[in-house]
């Protein structure tokens, strides 16, 4: 049934989908981490990926912007269309793919630069026309305002970003994605290094970005998936087991494995 639902979703194709993976296989050396993953992620909503450690959810996330390829021993077959482009086609460049997609990591990883330079980093990488200081100031302010960090850091934009608290760092890591106006944000357990208060602040932030951005978020935290997502993908041993609306999945999971995982019988 879930396959049918997915097929229905995949059929209209194109415009409505942010990510569409078709028969994605991935190997780390000789270990196969993804098996025939077919997944369609709708635009403008928050989709959570859940599953036990090693189930391939992070691997899938990291395949979408090909950041996986930093490891030399990764091999893939199948395709992923992101925003309508086949990111694994021969002509696609990983660099250009990554410029369309923002990514937030498990541990906040601001660059060892000032807060301002962190926010402007991506936009400075590939600007075609001259940008004035005033433009940059606007960019910095609006990005930091969007992540609710502006009031806390506006007086110390030249301070090193690595001196901020973890929560502020993670917000900054989200803020620095915004100036280049990506439409898709990939988040790899963005709250796992944070305390509960900071977690809820980041969750609120993610929820507020919903609509303007498509968000795919990997999480270990079932409660978080339940609170802060529209749709949920359950993965197990490199396969997608179930993909449904979050409220449906958590109340009436279609598959036994999903039910077992959600109820904490393994994981």
């Amino acid at each position, binding site marked *: 049934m879930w396959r049918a639902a997915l097929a229905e979703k995949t059929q209209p194709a194109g415009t409505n989908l942010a990510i569409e993976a078709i028969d994605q296989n991935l190997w780390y050396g000789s270990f196969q981490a993804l098996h025939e993953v077919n997944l369609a992620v709708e635009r403008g909503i928050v989709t959570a990926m859940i599953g036990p450690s090693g189930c391939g959810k992070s691997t899938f996330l990291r395949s979408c*912007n090909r*950041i996986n390829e930093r490891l030399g021993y990764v091999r893939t077959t199948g395709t992923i269309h992101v925003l309508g482009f086949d990111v694994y086609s021969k002509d696609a460049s990983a660099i250009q793919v990554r410029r369309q997609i923002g990514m937030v990591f498990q541990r906040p990883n601001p660059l060892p630069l000032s807060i301002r330079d962190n926010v402007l980093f991506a936009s400075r*990488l*590939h600007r075609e026309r001259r940008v004035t200081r005033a433009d940059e100031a606007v960019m910095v302010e609006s990005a930091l305002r969007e992540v609710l960090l502006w009031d806390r850091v506006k007086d110390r934009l030249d301070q090193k970003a690595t001196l901020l608290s973890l929560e502020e760092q993670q917000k900054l890591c989200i803020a620095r994605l915004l100036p280049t106006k990506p439409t898709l944000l990939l988040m790899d357990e963005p709250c796992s290094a944070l305390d509960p208060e900071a977690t809820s602040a980041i969750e609120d932030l993610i929820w507020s970005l919903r609509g303007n951005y498509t968000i795919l978020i990997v999480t270990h935290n079932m409660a978080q998936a339940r609170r802060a997502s529209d749709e949920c993908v359950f993965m197990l041993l490199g396969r997608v087991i179930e993909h449904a609306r979050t409220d449906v999945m958590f109340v009436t999971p279609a598959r036994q494995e999903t039910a077992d995982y959600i109820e904490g019988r393994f994981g």
Partner: protein
Amino acid sequence: MTLRHTDTLATKQTAPVDQRDRAWWLDFTAKTVVFFGGISAIIFIVSIFLFIATQGLDFAVHRLNWADFFTSPIWRPTSSPPQYGALALICGTASISLLAMLIAVPFSLGAAIYIGEFASGKKREWLKILIELLAAIPSVVWGVIGLHVIGPALVNIFHIDIGLCLLNAGIILGLMAAPIMTTIAEDALRAVPDTYREAAEALGATRWQVVWRVVLPHARPGLSAAVLLGIGRAFGETIAVLMASGHAIVMPTSVFDSVRALTATVAAELGETAQGDDHYQALFVLGVLLFGITFVINLTADRIIRGSRRQAT
């Protein structure tokens, strides 16, 4: 099982706590040996400095004209009256080292960036091994290369009379200093956390942008230290410089002038002196000067490295 356990507990004697068994003695011996190994470095450096300093002390305090020493380019210790002007020697050493760095810095930083940031797997391992081998080439071999390969090559290319000159010594010394600088610079690059690279790449940076905007700025202290240690190496090198530089006491005005280095002067002249005479003592003053310079350079490099570590944590 449990029964026997309680059984032994009840009957077991308390182990003695004041016994000096084999492990204790081994530990004691090892600690002592390692302690002397550790402080031997301090003992050696202090006694070497004292030896050099005292050998030249009498002459330096009573008979050496310090103003001449630093301002006169005329070094004629065997003429009468002898003249001890070290300026040409200082300029010789400084100019050779400067030229060596102009050659070595781009080479070694380029190599370090390639090995650390672009090469991968086997290629990287091989390059590292080869560069370490390069560092192991004896300096006299470099001297022979300067004498018989680079010298004639310079004569052919630039149509100069003598191939043994500042340029020759600079090239040789640059090549000699490059491997150690590469190794240290590569360590500095590798000390940059990979999460920074990942973050920058996820933002769409090319490899070069990652290197230029993130890795190099963060590794700058370590890279400066690499350059400083290279300079220290260049200042201290003797035999290769002696063979390649032409060993003529000249204030260098072009890269094709023959020059003489402080180290080479000591090496060439010390054997001809009578122990304890003024010439002998003057050479030890040169030694103190060299010692001081390299000491300051190494200390600065060390401070930079430590400073950057503290900043990183």
